[in-house]
């Protein structure tokens, strides 16, 4: 079975591609990437005027299985991923029960083998039951295939436990993803603390709750020599701290999500619960700082923090609504609209943030078009405009911040493991 992708503009900085080229897929692997390939093929895909890039790697996805299959499943979440051009996801372990042991990993792996439509990489909690007290068996989990540890949804409050986890992770060469949040400063806050929370009469979440914990996590990483990744960076103070730590040689990488570099607290004037997430949308000044940090490489990755919730949990009073929004199916288009169209990033930089870098951070052989790599490839019509509607999602939930928005850039073909698995003509 040979697929030839013809005449696309191939972008992949990890292989040095940035030109009109052809890609030949053979036996589910990328066999050649060259100009004008004349080989025989079984299937021809004309990619003239389209962008061809590696399938995206989203390192922050809540698939909700096991436990909350009413919100999302491995099956529905990976289907949504393919629609959005994402061929590899890192599943967050804050399920019910939490993924914190070899047994839980084995159970989830079985579900993945049976039902996943894309690559699902597994993470484990840092502490048992995500309770912040007892560090998990990192070595055993690593041997079971876990690629990162995170208590995402919560921070490990105890500095002592976090330090212990970081030392063990360092020795096992395991990445720790930090949900950096000091809950004691958040209290019952629901949106960013500032003029907007004052005007709306909603309890505010101070930025200190994020960046003071980022600061602690960076200091611990520096002291222990462990590698950390800061999830969902939302404010300019965190960016400054990360930049400083990077300059000092701390092993740190960081991500932000499309909603943080596109929206800000001023968008909350209508109390739209699809704009409620944690950390919250910050000020427009923070939004600008995030864009610049993406351009300057202080932020390494764009991840969706895809967090599905049912309508019952969202279509209620703002204070009572769940935190979190979905993003798998919009993250590429939002990034194209907000970063490429505004000339903040070029295509190569975008592919780095959404494919190359997350794969590298997780140490997985994905997100690249290198010859010999798995043929996970997407073809994107960068000119096509579309409007986000509730009906357009493959996800079981539709709590998107971008409902009603017109975006530029549409995935027209997703190839996963050498097979065309999604087509939108």
């Amino acid at each position, binding site marked *: 079975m040979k697929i030839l992708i013809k005449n696309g503009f191939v972008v992949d900085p990890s292989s040095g591609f940035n030109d009109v080229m052809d890609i030949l897929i053979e036996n589910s692997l990328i066999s050649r990437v060259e100009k004008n390939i004349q080989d025989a093929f079984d299937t021809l895909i004309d990619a003239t005027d389209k962008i061809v890039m590696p399938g995206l790697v989203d390192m922050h996805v809540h698939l909700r299985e096991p436990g909350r299959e009413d919100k999302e499943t491995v099956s529905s979440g990976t289907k949504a991923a393919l629609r959005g051009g994402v061929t590899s996801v890192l599943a967050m372990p804050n399920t019910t029960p939490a993924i914190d042991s070899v047994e839980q990993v084995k159970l989830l792996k079985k579900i993945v083998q049976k039902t996943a439509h894309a690559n699902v990489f597994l993470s484990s909690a840092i502490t048992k039951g995500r309770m912040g007290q007892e560090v998990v068996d990192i070595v055993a989990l690593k041997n079971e295939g876990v690629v990162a540890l995170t208590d995402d949804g919560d921070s490990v409050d105890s500095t002592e436990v976090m330090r212990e986890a970081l030392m063990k992770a360092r020795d096992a060469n395991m990445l720790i993803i930090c949900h950096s949040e000091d809950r004691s400063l958040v209290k019952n806050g629901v949106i960013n603390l500032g*003029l907007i929370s004052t*005007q*709306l*009469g909603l309890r505010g979440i101070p930025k200190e709750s994020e960046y003071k914990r980022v600061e602690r996590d960076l200091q611990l990483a520096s002291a222990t020599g462990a590698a950390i990744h800061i999830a969902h960076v939302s404010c300019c103070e965190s960016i400054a701290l990360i930049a400083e730590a990077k300059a000092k040689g701390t092993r740190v990488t960081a991500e932000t999500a499309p909603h943080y570099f596109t929206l800000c607290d001023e968008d909350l004037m*209508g*109390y739209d619960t699809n704009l409620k997430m944690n950390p919250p949308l910050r000020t427009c000044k923070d939004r600008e700082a995030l864009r610049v940090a993406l351009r300057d490489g202080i932020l390494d990755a764009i991840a969706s923090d895809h967090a599905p919730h049912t309508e019952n949990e969202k*279509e*209620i*009073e703002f204070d009572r609504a769940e935190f979190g929004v979905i993003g798998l199916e919009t993250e590429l288009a939002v990034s194209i609209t907000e970063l490429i169209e505004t000339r903040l990033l070029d295509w190569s930089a975008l592919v780095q943030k959404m494919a190359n870098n997350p794969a590298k951070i997780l140490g997985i052989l994905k997100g690249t078009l290198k010859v010999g790599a798995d043929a996970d490839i997407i073809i994107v019509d960068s000119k096509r405009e579309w409007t986000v509607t509730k009906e357009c999602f493959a996800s079981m939930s539709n709590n998107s911040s971008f409902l009603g928005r017109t975006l530029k850039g549409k995935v027209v073909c997703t190839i996963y493991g050498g097979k065309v698995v999604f087509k939108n003509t």
Partner: protein
Amino acid sequence: MSLLKEELERNLNKPEVDKASLRKVAWVRKDLLGLQELSREELELILSTAESFKEVISREIKKVPTLRGKTVVNLFYEPSTRTRTSFEVAAKRLSADVINISTDSSSVRKGETLIDTGKNIEALKVDIIVVRHNYSGAAAMLARNVHASVINAGDGWHEHPTQALLDIFTLKEKLGRIEGLNVSIVGDIAHSRVARSNIWGLTKLGAHVTVCAPPLLIPVSIEEMGVKVTSDVEAALKEADAVNVLRMQFERDTENAFPRQLEYFKNFGITVDRLKHAKKNILVMHPGPINRGIEISSEVADGPNSVILEQVTNGIAVRMAVLFLVAQAHDQLRSKARTRGAKKI
């Protein structure tokens, strides 16, 4: 008996509102959710409409047929006597049918969502829902989900538009203008929807607003709303043409931000002594209910500067105006929709 009938008839035939004054600016909103979204002209329209209704309620027979055949539901998720009664009286003066639903007597306790409750009320062919809710934004959410008009009677810490309108109406009635007035709001600004609505309304109409509270009860960045901020009550009173004294809602102190009651009275209570430093004719207002001896002394509450009971009377006129305007806009929207539908066929 015949005299009474005559009077009633006269009332029925009297145009309750000067229609010409309304044509200057049209009221097109089906809902009143807050003063933030209103223009100066819309605020002035409500105030002038309320003036006409104030005349109506000063008549011997206080009832007009304006909303005959309409149904108003007071949907109250928080205990309230004052606001609910005021809306009820206002609606009845306009000849509407009024139904009161409070959390104690409804299926709310059984876990029904606000949207479902709203849709059920609407299915009863109700025209206007007056809603009081403990969560900020609840009125806006309800308005998005029902066709009926929604009037916000207070949502969380967000807004209480009709309270601010009656405060402003009283100010204007007593002092003849709003533009250029110095108005101080003293009390728990952080948790006060009354303060927020007053700030929006007063600043839009050109008043200079000062807010005064203990530092922990001043919300962040409030100065960006165009107000002066102080924790010195004497400074707040010094140049003020009026002071709006807020009730200290000690029952809401979940974050230990409140000073003790006596300490508050000592440092912030509005007393005869404190008023000696203020303008002689300063108006003293309070949205009620009053905590005597906590935020205000009895001598001041009952004294010559107090307009607290007049505020209550004016509340009827203002709420009649709001009910009238949203009902009128709703009728127009509906008839427009009908015309559009007819054209399609």
